[in-house]
């Protein structure tokens, strides 16, 4: 009978509840939808990758190296081929490509394929079926973007080094490509037999050699490569199997999805705030009823259960709606992220994700509802007789403590579950807690200051509007928190993006170089200098580049260090990579000495017996675990050279100019095989293009980069990333608006009552409107100022410590955010309060009398 009564009362009491709480349920709906959409997408991606990994790689095994394969490696490939494997080769390098008709030149990635690769997956050319046939002549296939950027057409001639190739068509689709790729770099395909003709594979060029294999028994691939792992490592050959490719791709896309999911989680948490806000008002209206029930004999827990049941049902409804909306959004997410996806992601229902969304939405809404609902549990039956009677609340209510604890644990668990890594999850939870606390404190401080210092002699409408923010049962703090959170997210994103772009824009200052030329051979230096002088382009910087490999740290060889599993770990990439050194007697503007003494202070000539000195970058010094006085032995094109670390530099890697892990003192590498990098500045883009064209014609091996093109590409990439994040942040904004509308709706009764009273006392409708407008504008100002202020602080933290750049505050845009929030809040508030102004005093008083 007791359970039946509880259920019956919950059902009856919810008649008016459903409509009242609907707006807060929408807040949970949005949060659940965000999570379900992105997590379902992640699951869809994982399935798609596991199904399509082979098609994306295009082969069963990929081998690659920066140098031509050593004989031992070729022997392995030969043995696999003898065992029935099909082998394709791909050589790639960067070079300038010149469209002879238009005269436009660009830095491109040249790929020279041979064999039947790709063995799996789709490759589309336009016209179709050109992939094999274009190789029979001096033809080229290009990215569609090449035709646009070089103002070329099919049939035009492309000059690559000394080679001339007719553009036969475009490659519309290549296995594993993402939409962003052409933004990052243009690609051109030439037949492998004509590679030598280009004359571009020479000293100093950065080229890659790859082999793609189709193995008869794919199950043997992993064991095949693992058995030869040490051979590959010794010859600096990396390999990728289908499984590893799929894992890497999944990991990358999963991390992207998890990051976006964190943004969606914020929407869910805001939804929880909305629920707490709505239930708080609901409880205030139900306390009398609860007291009557207690009077009539309902037990404490039973009374509590009646209202918890209602909140639970509303939370369940919100979660179900959220799952449905999330499924609809799931179809949209691939479109938003299409530039980052190398594969088609088919839509499929992910029941685990849906159930998780349902459970999380219900649990979160219940937890947030519990806090205000606890007042029902503690309601005194005596309140039915004396309305002003309030039970003295225990200082340490175990229920309240348990609810807060459960809330904290839930939020922590959700962020850790959603985050790409545990550390990031913990950091996000901590940052969210700090952010929420600061938002709340800022909101309180603003309100307190306003209440205290608002001029008492201000206009009546202004004073009344401000006073309304502090009326009993006001939702000012909750609305400020919710709207402020949404503003914070968007503004913070903007601040970071703006600073990243501003940093890049620094490179376009009049004193900065905007054209970089590299792979200049020593015997070409004079010719290049003459060309630049002829074109009125000053040489701003001339930097020699000496390629080298690290062979020893102190007494230990690289092989010994790699084999040592007990000592301090030094990353493999730092030991095995190809280094590019330079030599000079000064620091450059992107460098700062942080330890030791610069070379010139001791004088080169005074140190005849000592080892050659180098200056090392602090980051690589930390990776290699070396310091001042330590010795490093290099292989400079086959010649061993032992050096001593004389000092440590800090390098601003964000600067668009040659930066180096190691700088040699003058006189050591002057006779070593080297190439040059030259930087110049040409303001006129047409002259810049002409210089690039002249370089290609006169010196086909020299590559040049127009930095303004790079900056435009980075801008485009950042904009796409920001778009994806903003898409998820929209859920938070929507939650904030829902809470705002709800906050306005719940206090409609009070506003109407006040308006009726004021009108009865003689106030005109214009005055009522001004009061309302003041209230909403102040609310929007609090929220906007809170969000924008904290966004500026968080942006400073991110830019300064995460990106290690100088922070610049985008004042005017933030001001626009602030004012925009205030105006939007005012408009929404006034729109929802139209009937408040229209109500006649008599009609209003009749309503209140009843």
């Amino acid at each position, binding site marked *: *009978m*007791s359970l*039946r*009564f509880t259920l*019956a*009362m919950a059902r*009856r*009491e*919810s*008649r*008016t*509840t459903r409509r009242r709480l609907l707006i807060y349920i929408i807040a949970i709906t949005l949060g659940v939808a965000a999570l379900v959409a992105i997590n379902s997408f992640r699951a869809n991606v994982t399935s798609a990758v596991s199904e399509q990994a082979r098609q994306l790689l295009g082969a069963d095994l990929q081998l690659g190296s920066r140098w031509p394969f050593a004989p031992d490696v070729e022997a392995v490939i030969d043995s696999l081929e003898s065992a029935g494997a099909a082998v394709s080769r791909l050589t790639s390098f960067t070079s300038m490509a010149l469209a002879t008709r238009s005269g436009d030149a660009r830095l491109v990635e040249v790929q020279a394929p041979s064999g039947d690769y790709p063995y799996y997956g789709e490759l589309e050319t336009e016209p179709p079926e050109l992939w094999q046939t274009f190789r029979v002549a001096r033809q080229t296939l290009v990215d569609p973007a090449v035709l646009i950027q070089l103002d070329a057409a099919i049939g035009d001639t492309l000059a690559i080094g000394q080679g001339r190739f007719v553009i036969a068509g475009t490659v519309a689709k290549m296995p594993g490509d993402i939409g962003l790729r052409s933004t990052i770099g243009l690609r051109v395909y030439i037949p492998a037999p004509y590679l030598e003709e280009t004359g571009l594979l020479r000293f100093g060029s950065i080229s890659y050699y790859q082999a793609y294999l189709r193995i008869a028994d794919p199950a043997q691939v992993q064991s095949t490569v693992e058995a030869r792992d040490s051979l590959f490592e010794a010859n600096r050959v990396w390999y990728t199997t289908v499984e590893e490719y799929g894992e890497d791709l999944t990991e990358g896309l999963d991390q992207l999805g998890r990051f976006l999911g964190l943004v969606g989680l914020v929407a869910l948490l805001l939804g929880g705030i909305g629920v707490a806000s709505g239930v708080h008002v609901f409880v205030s209206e139900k306390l*009398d*009823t609860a007291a*009557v*029930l*207690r*009077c*009539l*004999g*309902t*037990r*404490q*827990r039973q009374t509590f259960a009646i209202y918890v049941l209602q909140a639970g049902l509303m939370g369940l409804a919100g979660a179900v709606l959220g799952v449905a909306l999330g499924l609809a959004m799931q179809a949209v997410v691939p479109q938003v992220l299409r530039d980052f996806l190398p594969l088609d992601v088919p839509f499929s229902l992910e029941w685990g994700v849906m159930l998780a969304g349902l459970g999380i939405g219900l649990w979160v809404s219940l937890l947030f509802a519990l806090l205000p609902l606890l007042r029902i549990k503690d309601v*005194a*039956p*005596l309140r*039915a*007789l*004396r309305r002003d009677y309030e039970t*003295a609340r225990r200082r340490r209510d175990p229920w309240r403590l348990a609810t807060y604890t459960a809330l904290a644990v839930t939020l922590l668990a959700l962020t850790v579950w959603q985050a790409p890594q545990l550390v990031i999850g913990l950091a996000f939870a901590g940052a969210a807690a700090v952010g929420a606390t600061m938002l709340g404190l800022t909101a309180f401080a603003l309100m307190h200051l306003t209440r205290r210092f608002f001029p008492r002699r201000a206009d009546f409408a202004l004073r009344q509007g401000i006073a309304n923010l502090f009326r009993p049962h006001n939702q000012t703090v909750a609305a400020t928190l919710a709207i402020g959170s949404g503003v914070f997210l968007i503004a913070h994103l903007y601040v970071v993006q703006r600073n990243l772009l501003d940093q890049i824009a620094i490179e376009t200052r009049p004193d900065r170089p905007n054209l970089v030329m590299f792979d200049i051979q020593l015997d070409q230096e004079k010719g290049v200098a003459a060309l630049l002088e002829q074109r009125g382009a000053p040489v701003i910087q001339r930097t020699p580049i000496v390629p080298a490999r690290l062979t020893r740290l102190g007494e230990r060889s690289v092989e010994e260090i790699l084999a040592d599993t007990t000592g301090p770990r030094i990353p493999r990439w730092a030991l095995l990579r190809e280094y590019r050194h330079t030599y000079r007697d000064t620091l450059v503007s992107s460098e700062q000495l942080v330890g030791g003494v610069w070379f010139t202070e001791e004088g080169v000539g005074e140190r005849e017996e000592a080892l050659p000195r180098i200056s090392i970058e602090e980051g690589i010094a930390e990776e290699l675990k070396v310091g001042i006085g330590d010795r490093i032995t290099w292989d400079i094109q086959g010649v061993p050279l032992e050096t001593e670390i004389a000092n440590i530099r800090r390098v601003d890697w964000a600067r668009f100019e040659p930066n180096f892990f190691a700088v040699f003192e003058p006189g050591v590498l002057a006779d070593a095989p080297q190439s040059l990098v030259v930087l110049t500045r040409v303001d006129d883009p047409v002259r810049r293009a002409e210089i690039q064209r002249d370089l290609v014609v006169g010196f086909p091996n020299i590559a040049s980069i127009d930095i303004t093109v790079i900056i435009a590409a980075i801008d485009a990439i950042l904009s796409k990333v920001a778009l994806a994040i903003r898409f998820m942040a929209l859920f938070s904004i929507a939650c904030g608006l829902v809470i705002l509308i709800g906050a306005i709706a719940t206090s409609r009764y009070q506003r109407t009552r006040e308006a009726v009273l004021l009108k009865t006392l003689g106030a005109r409708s214009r005055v009522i409107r001004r009061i309302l407008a003041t209230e909403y504008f102040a609310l929007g100002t609090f929220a906007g100022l809170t969000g924008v202020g904290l966004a500026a602080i968080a942006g400073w933290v991110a830019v300064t410590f995460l990106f290690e750049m100088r922070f610049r505050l985008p004042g005017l845009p933030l001001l626009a955010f602030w004012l925009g929030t205030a105006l939007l809040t005012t408009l929404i508030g006034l729109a929802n309060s139209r009937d408040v102004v229209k109500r006649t005093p008599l009609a209003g008083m009749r309503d209140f009398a*009843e």
Partner: protein
Amino acid sequence: MIIAKGLAQTYMSGDRPLTVLKGIDLEIEAGGAVAILGPSGSGKTTLLGLLAGLDLPSAGYVVLDGQNLSELSEDERAELRADKVGFVFQTFQLIPTLTALENVLVPIELQQASVVNGGEMQRRASELLERVGLGDRTHHYPAQLSGGEQQRVGLARAFANRPKILMADEPTGNLDAETGHHVINLMVRLNREEGTTLVLVTHDVELASKAHRIIQLSAGRIVSDERLTPQ
């Protein structure tokens, strides 16, 4: 039926203690009608609340139908109220989301010892509403009823669980004179028909005169206890 000994009650008003009752001793026999009379602030509503077990006294005790309320837990006192006490409130205190019939049903549904089935509960509730003259308003919500009609629903609810004791706190306080008169007559009649013990709190002397006994409170103390011949 009700025994109160050394009853005292002190509340915190802000940061200062406020003593509302200062040592009340009284006994109320079964079947009688007792009016507790006093001006506003005399402690009569507080006394009513303590007699009904809605709160625990700062000092003293109350025995209700043989049970010391101080020895019972909050839920046990709630059970006791569900079984033995009916309430009539000054502000009617109908649950706004329930119909008239559903409001009357609440005490019946709460009775743990009830063995009546759903049909019988409905019949009892409908019959009570008939007796108070609202047989044709069973499905109306409180917002659709006048003040007098709401108080009549309150009366029907108060008798729904066949209480031994009826506690009425200013039952006509929010009604006009004529409606209040009508409600009081109804309450007295039902009280007589059901055989309950009536404890009525009022500041209205004329209303108090309808009881068998008038206990006057002033400043938290009983200043007179007079037995009358009922009107």
